[in-house]
């Protein structure tokens, strides 16, 4: 079987790696409420490419890269939809509901969405590992709930600046995964692969 190149995953990882060391590019792409309201709408979608510290970048890329690679290699469809919802959704929601949030960035919404999508697809296609995928989904749910209810991560610093963890970003990622899975399920002539195709 031919190995399929995970183009979407590699493109997003490459862009995030390119943006991080160039501050002027980060400033141009980050979610900046004032700039968006002044007409720079692309920032709503490009914010996930911007990271505030090396560890912020590293963990996000590691999880997104691994999950995205597994998804694309297994030929699960509609992964682009997960990425689109997880990239644009939080920016739009914050623009409408969180006027106090001035700056936002990070790929963790896409990473969470990718992991959730991988789990949903793997569970739906069956296999020995279904219980493990279910455990991962449950763990992610617990983390998002703990962040939302307990405000556990209020004391976080990234790149020398005080930083607030936004659980909604992860929640939108999971919702993107559910929507993409439903679209995939209802679309006709769909022939998704399975994780046994994974090289």
């Amino acid at each position: 079987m031919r190995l399929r190149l995970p183009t979407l995953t590699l493109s997003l990882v490459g862009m995030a790696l390119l943006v991080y060391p160039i501050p002027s590019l980060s400033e141009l792409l980050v979610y900046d409420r004032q700039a968006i309201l002044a007409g720079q709408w692309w920032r709503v979608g490009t914010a996930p490419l911007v990271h505030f510290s090396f560890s912020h970048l590293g963990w996000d890329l590691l999880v997104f890269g691994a999950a995205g690679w597994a998804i694309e290699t297994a030929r699960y469809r509609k992964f682009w939809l997960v990425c689109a919802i997880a990239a644009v959704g939080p920016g739009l929601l914050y623009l409408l509901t969180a006027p106090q949030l001035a700056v936002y960035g990070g790929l963790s919404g896409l990473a969470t969405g990718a992991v959730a999508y991988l789990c949903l697809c793997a569970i739906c296609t069956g296999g020995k590992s279904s219980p493990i995928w279910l455990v991962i989904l449950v763990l992610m749910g617990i983390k998002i709930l703990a962040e939302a209810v307990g405000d556990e991560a209020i004391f976080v610093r990234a790149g020398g600046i005080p930083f607030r963890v936004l659980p909604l970003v992860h929640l939108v990622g999971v919702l993107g995964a559910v929507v993409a899975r439903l679209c995939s399920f209802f679309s006709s002539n769909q022939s998704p692969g399975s994780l046994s195709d994974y090289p």
Partner: protein
Amino acid sequence: MRVTSIVVSLILSALLISTLAACVRFTDKARSRYASSVVDYLYPQKEVAEIPSIPQLSLPLRVGVAFVPESSRMSRPDSLSEKDKLDLMQRISAEFRSLPFVKDIELIPSAYLMPGGSFTNLDQIRTMYGVDVMALLSFDQVQHTDEGLLSLSYWTIVGAYVIRGEKNDTSTMMDAAVYDIASRKMLFRAPGTSHVKGSATLVNLPEQLRADSAEGFSLAADNLVVNLNGELQRFQAKVKEQPEEYVVRHKAGYTGGGSLGGTFALALLGLGGLALWRNKKG
């Protein structure tokens, strides 16, 4: 004969009195206590009590660091200069600077703190510098020139701190009390102590005592920084564990984003890897 003995007695008495007076003078000169007190600064009128309310911490915080004014009865000519105080404040403020919820640190010059200024003075500083929280630094330094003559018993905001002294020793106590200005609530405090053993002789006593004084402050500041670090960790845990005692919110204009965290990311990767391996194997 009788007259002669009376004259001799008078001369001896005069000599004895003058000797005793000299001793008292020597003892007074030898005693040296140099102090400032948070209690005197915040609560100058003991009958008036400030009732703290629940602190509402708007993150990220702006923190002010300042030395409270020295007690006039316990000052001395070679007291800490403004530069010395700024140096000490900078060392202590470095601990706050590393905190995730602190945005800015302002070092407040001593001239802005009035003796007995209490929270009214702190409110003025809050307006001038825009700080939310103040770290009030105070100290008590005693240089003992006679064994057991003077021990250092410093009244901190939570009780007395006693250090006994030996001859020519320098005992120093520094205290950092961190207050939320708006609620009048003390968030936490940390002490720092030092004890410099005396090596001075009568010939170099003043110079050596001055050097010991500076060393005492420096060592106490080092100790304070270590204790402050521990107290800051405990404070962060307390804020999370007791949300009913501290209201935490974020100021307008904050930065945010998703964060997976190392532990969670590794857990995801581990479990995902295991699942993929089982699939491949099966």
